[in-house]
């Protein structure tokens, strides 16, 4: 705090004004109920903060679950792709002699057409499932 006396360098008029100002501008006392109301406000704030924290935790948990589900889905998709490719390769290797015997020089084209039909079929089924239609394969 400043220790100098601010009234030292004043003339009579200023000193009189200073005294009047000190009288007119009295420091307001803290309202009696201030602490009680503040405690209520703090209690409300605590409840809100807890609720916000709970919601935040819940949201984070859901987000983590979603993320792990997404990762699982990606791994499954990758597994399906690798497995499918491997199975297709094995099937072609096993069926190639029969294709050559049946279609002769056109065996390659027949194989490509069958591959395309199977691919389009898988694509159609997955799109139908995504659009909410029943799996057509399950009908049989």
């Amino acid at each position: 705090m400043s220790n100098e006396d601010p009234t030292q360098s004043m003339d009579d008029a200023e000193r009189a004004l200073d005294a009047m100002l000190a009288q007119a501008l009295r420091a307001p006392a803290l309202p009696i109920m201030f602490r009680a109301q503040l405690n209520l406000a703090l209690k409300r704030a605590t409840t809100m903060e807890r609720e916000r924290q709970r919601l935040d935790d819940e949201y984070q948990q859901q987000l983590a679950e979603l993320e792990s589900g997404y990762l699982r889905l990606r791994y499954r998709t990758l597994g399906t792709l690798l497995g499918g490719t491997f199975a297709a390769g094995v099937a072609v290797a096993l069926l190639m002699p029969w294709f050559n015997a049946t279609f002769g020089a056109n065996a390659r084209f027949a194989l490509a057409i069958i591959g395309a039909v199977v691919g389009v079929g898988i694509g159609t089924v997955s799109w139908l499932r995504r659009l909410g239609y029943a799996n057509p394969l399950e009908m049989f």
Partner: protein
Amino acid sequence: MQAGWADAALEDRDILDLLHKGARDQAFAQLLDRYEHKLYRLCCALLRDTTLAQDAAQEALVRIWRALPNYDGRASLSTWLYAITRNRCLTAMARRRDESAVLDSAADAEQVSVEDVVPDDRSALLNALIGQLPQRYRHVLTLFYYEDRSISEVAAMLAIPEGTIKTTLHRARAALMEKLRRRGLDTPSTWLETNK
């Protein structure tokens, strides 16, 4: 001023120690005992309305309580507390401006004008005249007397250098004296008589 702030910082060390220990409630209780009056007076000086000041002080203290665990000690505790409180007051002032823009005539009717004041009621007249001063004069003048004429405390509360506070005070008093002179009330004897 330096010594004043250093003293305040030393005084606040116990609050900081409690905060470091994670005792937020105890730290806040100490802080309330030390600062709630000052923060309320700051709100009163800035808002000139005890109801608004009470609300603003309460909102500021709730904010302080929430932010207390994040207080990093870069600024002194008092500086930090005053800054939060000033911001709440500025928000309240902006809200009041918006409301008074809508209810302009009603607000005007509630304002005590100098002409309404009974000439013998010097205190009320002085308050009405202070109300006519520019905002920064009003804030400094009011806080100066609220804080027992401590320039360093007013400087800390308003985040203004002490030199500026002294100049503003001088100009505010001069402006007030001029207003009194215009009403023929600048004779010291008149004032001193009423003070007796």
